[in-house]
């Protein structure tokens, strides 16, 4: 039976939001309900948001009332830098337990559970195989709180799967995620001017692009795939290779002995090395991703392409930062749009006003953040992505402040191009 009434836990996490957006596009899905203890961070059209406590104690009532048939759990915390270890434990272990309790029972309507886990399940050790497959456990018990939590959470999912044979339980273990929108400790390290390493170690890293994570969750939601699957893109890169793809030097700033102590010192000066990352920086990890591919999933990116996508984002991010306006959830507005009889044209929303277009002509400041720090060739490469009105503002600003002929010429030709191709000139 295909999933029609879906509950997403962790709606306000990046993954919950992205997955809800993706599922909204599928008309065969009747209802999408998202629960979390914080408000959604992305714009949603028909997903209903229900605020619940961290422990998800009242979830059972939501599940029963809405006759949920599929629960997708995207809420696992896998990065100890994002929260305190106690909150992470509360969320990962107690939360998982309660969510599973809400799905169990003879009269439960739930027929499918998709659980987002992490490859931290396997840890990183000296006597690891080069490629972990789903049947392998970790050779040694975990030493960091996050890894312990992940193991405990997965153990309770496995127990649930054993005791509820009528429920299709899918566990997806994701490799380290890279992408322009998601924030992880690894991405933070890769954003530094040089990639930090442990002296004398060149660990093997496997990544997965953020879009592939969303697609993988969607894939599991739409199909019957009981069991555990690794989700990691093709290709295992050495960390030096990653640094090369990012166009950065690598800096072996952590000593091979006393790494934990040194990492503690680094933390003081703002370089965050979560404890679960240190083992990976030393030994690395590779995953056997073939099972999920055999289950019909196709990756959009290889590990190398995911790193290149991140590299491009890191290069352009300082330039494009101004164009995106963060979404803010406002309950009254969302409720009006969903339920008010006065909303005429269904779920259509007024198009959000672009911050760039609105502010371009009015402000005396540069139309693009850090404009004054940019080299002419960087500006020229940026021009093609701008709207005509922003271009005009840019030309004015450039004329008044710098007056570089090459830049002005490039802007003029871009304006001419957009007019020639029928682009409507802005107000």
């Amino acid at each position, binding site marked *: 039976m295909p999933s029609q009434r879906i509950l997403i836990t962790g709606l306000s996490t990046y993954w919950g939001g992205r997955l809800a957006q993706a599922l909204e596009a599928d008309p065969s899905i009747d209802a999408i309900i998202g629960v979390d203890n914080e408000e959604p961070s992305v714009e949603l059209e028909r997903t209903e948001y229900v605020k619940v406590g961290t422990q998800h104690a009242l979830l059972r009532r939501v599940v029963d009332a809405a006759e949920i048939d599929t629960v997708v759990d995207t809420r696992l915390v896998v990065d100890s830098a994002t929260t305190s270890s106690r909150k992470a434990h509360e969320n990962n272990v107690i939360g998982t337990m309660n969510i599973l309790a809400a799905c169990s029972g003879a009269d439960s309507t739930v027929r499918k559970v998709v659980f987002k886990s992490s490859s931290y399940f396997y840890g990183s050790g*000296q*006597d*690891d*195989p*080069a*490629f972990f*497959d789903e049947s*392998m456990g970790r050779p040694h018990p975990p030493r960091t709180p996050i890894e312990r939590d992940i193991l405990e959470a997965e153990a309770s999912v496995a127990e649930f799967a054993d005791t509820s044979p009528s429920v299709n339980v899918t566990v997806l273990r994701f490799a380290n995620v890279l992408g322009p929108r998601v924030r992880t400790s690894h991405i933070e390290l890769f954003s530094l001017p040089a990639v930090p390493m*442990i*002296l*004398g*170690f*060149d660990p*093997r890293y496997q990544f997965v692009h953020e879009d592939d994570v969303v697609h993988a969750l969607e894939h599991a939601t739409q199909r019957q795939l009981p069991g555990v699957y690794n989700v990691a893109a*093709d*290709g*295992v*890169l*050495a960390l030096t*290779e990653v640094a090369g793809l990012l166009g950065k030097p690598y800096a072996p700033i952590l000593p*091979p002995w006393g790494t934990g102590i040194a990492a503690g010192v680094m933390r003081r000066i703002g370089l965050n090395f979560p404890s679960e990352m240190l083992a990976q920086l*030393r*030994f690395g990890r*590779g995953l*056997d*991703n*073939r*099972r999920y*591919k*055999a289950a019909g999933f196709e990756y959009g990116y*290889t590990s*190398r392409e995911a790193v290149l996508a991140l590299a491009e984002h890191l290069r352009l991010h300082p330039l494009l930062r101004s164009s995106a306006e963060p979404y803010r959830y406002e309950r009254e507005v969302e409720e009006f749009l969903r339920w008010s009889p006065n909303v005429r044209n269904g779920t259509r929303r007024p198009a959000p006003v672009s911050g760039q277009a609105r502010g371009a002509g009015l402000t005396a400041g540069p139309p693009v953040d850090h404009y004054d720090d940019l080299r002419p060739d960087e500006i020229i490469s940026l021009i093609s992505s701008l709207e005509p009105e922003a271009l005009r503002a840019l030309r004015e600003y450039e004329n008044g402040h710098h007056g570089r002929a090459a830049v002005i010429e490039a802007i003029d030709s871009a304006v001419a191009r957009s007019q020639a191709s029928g682009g409507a000139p802005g107000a």
Partner: protein
Amino acid sequence: MADPPRTPLSVREQPPGKGAPAPALPARRQDDLRRYLPGVEPERQLTDWGRSERVESLLDRTLVEFYYRYWFRAEVEGIENVPAGGGALLVSNHSGALPPDAVMIGKALREEHPHPRPLNITVEHFFKGYPGLSMLIPKIGCVAAHPANVHRLLYDEQQLVLVFPEGRKGSEKLYKDRYQLRRFGRGGFVEAAMRAQVPIVPVCVVGAEEAQPIFAQLKLLKKLTGLLYVPLTPTFPHLGPLGMLGYLPAKFKLRFLEPIHFDDEGMHEDKGLVQTTAHEVRARIQDGLFDMVSKRESVWFG
């Protein structure tokens, strides 16, 4: 009491010069995942195992070339016993403080084999944890001797893998015990070959024992450095770490013996058969070594 039926050990003779045709593999599992192996990205300089063609070929053209051709003057026989396609497990005796045998076998395959193929050398997990070595070792084609690694290389990727079943018991043995094979582990290598249904090619190496004779093991230095062992050789440790490369110019002889084939499914589950085969492989290598040593007239000139 009747013995349970055992799968016979098939030792098939291969006509020389003709590489063993890869036997038609029966569908061993419902889900044969081999077609889902990741493709090769030509832009990359490293494989998924961390192997670097650049580092490898640089070493191959300089240091390895020098030792193979001029220093050890390696002589190879029976190279046609290494199949030209499909997976195969090479099993060899092991000796020398910093064992030159693995590199020489790899070089012999590149130089003498009609279809040169890369050789994956299994090493101890120890190297992954030692700073510096852990960066270098995978780049030159070494992988940790994990059963899952060996199986993936042999069965899924159909590559050549070299194992030293003696392990460090072989490379730390003293000069007085030269050419006396140590115990062959627990037969894990036979199990790996049977599970992957690839042939075992026994290899005998003569010369490595004399190239770097070990007179004693230095226990205290071993503790201080955290290495697997610290041997006393003619050039090490008094000449420093580079003394590990100070080999004496012994004549190297490599002999590839006839492959042993395992064509039946599920042979690896028969522990008795695994042990018998491990003994058989060990005996063949030992016989080959004694034969080669007895025919040898000089340690230095062959």
